[in-house]
């Protein structure tokens, strides 16, 4: 019979424990989400990340150790992004019919996200690299980090701001759209994809397949547009 510390020292070295913990925390988060009557505030990502953070904190486990297990889940983001092509393909007739509304909403959502974030933060006294890190926060993490580096921001801070933006968008989109009486799933999905990238898109897929498809398009297009716009807007606002 092996003693407990020996078992713990095995588990803390292997990816098994934290991979399992990530899946269990998500299942718990998803169960809480369903039990709440699919309340957007009980976001499964938010619940899972709070549960896991508590476990890491109480066991004194560093994030790098946790990520050695969790990286297998994280890795699947790449193939999942590629898989967004399928709902896009099966909704192609909708997409072709709404090309103009999509392009208009893309430019509006993207520009408003960048400008208003910079203005609000600047008005509240944020400056320097922290302010620049904010510019690409509505776009998907790998693109945002690249843009942030290019602008002279802090990539780690940008990564955190991107994830927080996704959670904020996923939590707020349903009540906000209901308040505005917007019932068009295409508009709801597209707006959340542009404003809150993959986490917003995941939320859209929870609600409606069409909304999810349009969110995926919004996210993909905004990855491109933010890469072009953010350096230009920052140069315009902060030059001289």
């Amino acid at each position, binding site marked *: 019979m092996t003693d407990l510390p020996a078992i713990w020292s095995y588990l803390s070295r292997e990816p098994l424990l934290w991979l399992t913990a990530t899946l269990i925390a998500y299942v718990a988060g998803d169960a809480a989400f369903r039990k709440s009557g699919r309340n957007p505030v009980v976001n499964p990502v938010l619940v899972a990340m709070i549960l896991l953070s508590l476990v890491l904190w109480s066991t004194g486990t560093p994030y790098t150790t946790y990520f050695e297990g969790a990286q297998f889940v994280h890795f699947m983001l790449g193939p999942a992004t590629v898989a967004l092509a399928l709902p896009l393909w099966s909704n192609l007739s909708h997409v072709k019919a709404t090309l103009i509304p999509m392009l208009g*909403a893309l430019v509006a959502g993207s520009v408003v996200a960048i400008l208003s974030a910079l203005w609000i933060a600047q008005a509240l*006294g944020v400056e320097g690299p922290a302010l620049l890190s904010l510019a690409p926060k509505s776009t998907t993490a790998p693109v945002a980090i690249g843009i942030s580096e290019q602008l002279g921001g802090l990539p780690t801070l940008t990564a955190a701001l991107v994830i927080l933006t996704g959670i904020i968008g996923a939590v707020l989109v349903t009540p906000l759209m209901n308040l505005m009486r917007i019932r068009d799933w295409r508009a709801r999905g597209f707006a959340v994809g542009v404003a809150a990238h993959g986490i917003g898109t995941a939320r859209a897929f929870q609600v409606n397949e069409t909304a999810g498809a349009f969110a995926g398009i919004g996210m993909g297009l905004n990855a491109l547009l933010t890469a072009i716009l953010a350096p230009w807007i920052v140069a315009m606002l902060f030059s001289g």
Partner: protein
Amino acid sequence: MIANLAVFLSFQLAGEVITRGAGLPLPGPVLGLALLLLACIAVPSFGKRLLPTAQGLLSHLSLLFVPAGVGVVAHISTLGSAAPALLAALVGSTVLALIAGALVFVGLARLTGSEAGHD
């Protein structure tokens, strides 16, 4: 299922190789998405075969953000003393971007006569 996953990974791989090779300012998986879309348009039976696996993967898209989310909590100190101001900027700009995107979409859909979509 495994064959379909291999297809997604192959398109991601192609996307990574091309974006890095050509120095394009977009992530490899996004280019992989675009290439796969073109392939499905060219060969619809290919799309039909992949669709169930994609729906399975995407119905749990939230799960895939959990490791990065835990990272935010672990690195919350990177927000520094500017944390309240940054959070206010995130909430404010996300609300405004959602409103702007949805209103422009609905307005232009009405103008171009492509309404409906309440399914």
